[in-house]
């Protein structure tokens, strides 16, 4: 899947609420989207503004068929680090940091 399609899919999930947050036995306070410190609209805007050079991906450790997507970009005067994967029909966020 190309970068444009990946962006479109994750933004669609953010707009429709098909969003999950990966947790490790507790609530990760550093995931700003999970704690409500930032909104889905802000995250969608940050992802929407990212360019190809802001993006990288790698296989998930538990299942190499699943790609983990990472965007590091600047939007709204803030630096964003956003990490997620798709578990159809949802997007699962691992990290949403500023």
């Amino acid at each position, binding site marked *: 899947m190309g970068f444009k399609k990946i962006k479109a899919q994750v933004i669609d999930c953010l707009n429709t609420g098909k969003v999950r947050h990966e947790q490790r036995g*507790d609530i990760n*306070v550093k995931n700003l989207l999970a704690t409500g410190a930032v909104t889905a609209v802000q995250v969608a805007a940050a992802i929407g503004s990212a360019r190809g050079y802001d993006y990288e991906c790698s296989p998930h450790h538990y299942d190499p068929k699943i790609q983990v997507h990472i965007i590091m970009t600047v939007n709204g005067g803030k630096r964003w680090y956003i990490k997620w994967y798709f578990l159809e029909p949802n997007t699962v966020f691992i990290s949403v940091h500023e």
Partner: protein
Amino acid sequence: MDILKVGDQEKAACDNCAAFVTATYKLRDVPFSDGSGIVKQVLVGVCEQCDNVCVLPHQSTPVVKRALEKQRKSVEGRIPAHMVDILNLASAEVGCGTDFVQYIVKYYVHSLASKDISSKQLANYLKSDLAKGKAEKRISLKGRHIVKDMVELKALTRLDKTSDLIKSVILKINDDILQKKSPKSLNALRGVAAVFG
């Protein structure tokens, strides 16, 4: 918005099992990762194999946000009126209004507590003329880390009274920002202002 119910099941990554598993959505009391508190009765996905909490649906984020906001604690103290003026002038020096005052104090308390700024001379400020004056004004600092930072700074400086500690921090701010106009301190505060100011 996609809404899940108690008992719904989905595939999720379980850190404990190091695998993708079936998670069942249940109401649980779940701690925060920094150990600062608990979110009570929040809907989370629980691993069917090991009972580990492995996923939070987006519909649960308002409950998490409310729990985080509830645990914001405050530190309060009484200070002379001229110290409020010092803070207002320091805020203006950074290019901000009086709303930014609490961020300046919290930044200094945190930086002093974490030893980014030396706290060795802090107690000496209380011997200065500016430390005198009737404490007529109240200062309130709210946040998730301020209480912890104050405890650590009290241990470092051996200043036991909260008001004394706040006064000494304000006089340190006066020294750095208004008197010396330290570029390093001003730049650091301008960075904070870019985010919160």
